């Protein structure tokens, strides 16, 4: 602490400490703790809050598992289904994203000349200057029943009848994959870029095939970047709202949409909090799982 003050001077040091403490306590810890507490309280009208009925209860978590008391089903199939579907889709999107971005990142880091690599990075970034919602609507136009893609496929005679990309969730997968592509590419790019190119040549010189070089040399080296990219893409995909609202098929529901409904439409903040906590827990479990799978420490992931 003393050396920190000495190094940065009193003014900058004080600013840093106040900014970080404010950020941590007021913007992260207090809201989360408040939500955690709220998720264990009954949904009461404002006048009754703090009264004798305002006790800790598991009613919202019970609702997630068993459904409302008026329903005849033993479990809350709808909400659990949406929850599992969201996680499954997010995992699939993460895997697709990884498969899609790894070659691009490798190309940018090791194959392309510095100038074309820079051009590629710019080309990747520029589309993200456009708002996420607008990008989603643009994709919806492309994928619509009489949209650009269907028209081209029909005109070229590749298909006879239009494909319903929206109902097949192709639009949703594409939109979600594209939405967070940069968060996968850049950690991968950083990780692969730091690999000594001689290692690739040494492996090749020793007779290694391209696939084995990647499997034994590049991927082990880039595993922290892979873990980092995967956790970010998973968390943001599972927590996405705009893209699923615009692009999901009418019978696909996203878990964040449920949370949104409880908070805004049903005015049940406690239940919304409980559902948010569930999503948060899954994200934390996913991070821990990635750390276990890739045998990396938390410090390496955020690097």
């Amino acid at each position, binding site marked *: 602490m003393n050396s920190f003050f000495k190094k940065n001077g009193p003014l900058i040091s004080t600013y840093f400490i106040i900014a970080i403490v404010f950020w941590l306590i007021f913007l992260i810890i207090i809201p989360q703790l408040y939500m955690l507490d709220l998720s264990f309280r009954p949904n009461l009208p404002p006048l009754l809050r703090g009264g004798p009925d305002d006790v800790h209860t598991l009613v919202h978590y019970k609702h997630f598992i068993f459904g409302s008391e008026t329903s005849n089903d033993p479990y809350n199939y709808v909400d659990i289904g949406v929850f599992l579907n969201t996680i499954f889709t997010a995992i699939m999107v993460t895997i697709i994203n990884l498969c899609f971005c790894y070659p691009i990142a490798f190309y940018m880091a090791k194959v392309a000349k510095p100038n074309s690599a820079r051009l590629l990075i710019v080309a990747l970034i520029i589309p993200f200057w456009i708002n996420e919602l607008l990008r989603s609507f643009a994709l919806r136009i492309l994928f619509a029943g009489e949209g650009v893609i269907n028209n081209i496929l029909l005109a070229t005679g590749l298909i006879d009848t239009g494909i319903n990309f929206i109902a097949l969730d192709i639009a949703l997968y594409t939109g979600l994959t594209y939405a967070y592509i940069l968060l996968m590419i850049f950690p991968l790019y950083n990780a692969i870029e730091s690999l*000594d190119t*001689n*290692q690739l*040549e*040494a*492996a*090749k*010189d*020793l*007779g*290694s*095939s391209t696939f*084995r070089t990647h499997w*034994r*040399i590049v991927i*082990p*080296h880039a595993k922290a970047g892979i873990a980092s990219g995967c956790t970010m893409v998973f968390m943001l995909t599972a927590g996405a709202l705009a893209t699923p609202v615009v692009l999901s098929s009418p019978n696909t529901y996203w878990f964040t949409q449920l949370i949104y409904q409880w908070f805004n439409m049903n005015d049940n903040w406690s239940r919304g909090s409980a559902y948010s906590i569930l999503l948060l827990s899954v994200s934390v479990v996913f991070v821990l799982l990635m750390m276990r799978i890739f045998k990396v420490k938390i410090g390496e992931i955020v690097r």
Partner: protein
Amino acid sequence: MSVLFKQDAFLIVFKFKFVKIIISGGIIMSADVELQNISVTFGSFYAAKNVNVKIKQGEFFSFLGPSGCGKTTLLRAISGFLDPSEGKVLIGGEDMAGIGPNKRPTSLIFQNLALFPLMSVADNIAFSLEVRGKSKNERRKRADELLELIALSGQGDKKVHELSGGQRQRVAIARALAIEPEVLLLDEPLSALDLKLRQKMRTELRAIQKRVGITFIYITHDQGEALTMSDRVAVMNEGELEQVGLCDDVYDYPNTPFVATFVGENNPFYAKVVSVDNNEVKVESQGNTFLATAGKINENQNHSFSPGDEVIMFIRPESIFIKNDNNKLDNFFSAKVNTIEFEGNLKNIYVKINSNIDVRFSVPNAVDTSELSSNKDVELTFSSKKAVVLPKGQLAVD
């Protein structure tokens, strides 16, 4: 002490185990390498230009040149990482065009070794067997054999970063030898080591090459390394071969001013030819007249000069002596002492002739130089046999 012991142990183990281990496959395979008219261009820049050289099988051959002279380019062309713009690479008489680095009978040791940091030492050594689908047991056995060979027995499970610089060097050699290549290519592998270790590794590399019997092609900018280890050297400058020959030939009979100044130290005297008698050339340089020998164009032929030609006469620092009753050779000149530099085994004495030509000569440390002090006049002498006359040309920049 322990370092010395390990070194001895290494060589002893080497002597006895070697034949059994390396030649376990049967006959030693070694190939000659021929570069035919190799040119490599990047845009309009020639990284290598019309290189023709035949490297014999089982030879320790070095490409020697300053950085950026194209020697690494040639090595990459031989290993297959780079396709020459023109010309052919033949290994064992076979044209290598279109054959990738993973399919050539060569093995490359990188400047920074490029060991795989996330694999154990044994996995590193056996990587080439792994890619050839050899079983785990077979790989382990081979790795253990090679580890014993490089005096690192029982250290196969260590990670690379747990080894010292010299040990890593040996692991890199073992890894390259594991596939039993016919040609081993070395890209300045000793340049990162400190002086003592470098000198030790020179001896080890030479010993390994003698025993393995395969062709070694070595790239270096360090003439000491090239001269101590090689059978033959090729001196390169700006993408072209200046001279190819035995080490002592290149040192004693440089074909060009560049070779004369790049390999070892040399004093250039810009001069004019006065008269020529066979290979004996009389030259005049700033009022001094010297007798010298015409330099060679190639192994068999000397340059021919005629009176009036502008030439450079080269005389090496160790060939100049202080004139006294014991040392009277056929050339003399007088000069003024400028500075004396102590180099350990040698003393370098810088003198000036006519207060504008710098000449350096060196005497063993044992020679008493107490009489030489700054600004003192000194009479020097050298033999015409040791003075080489070459046509004017580019010198190696110091």
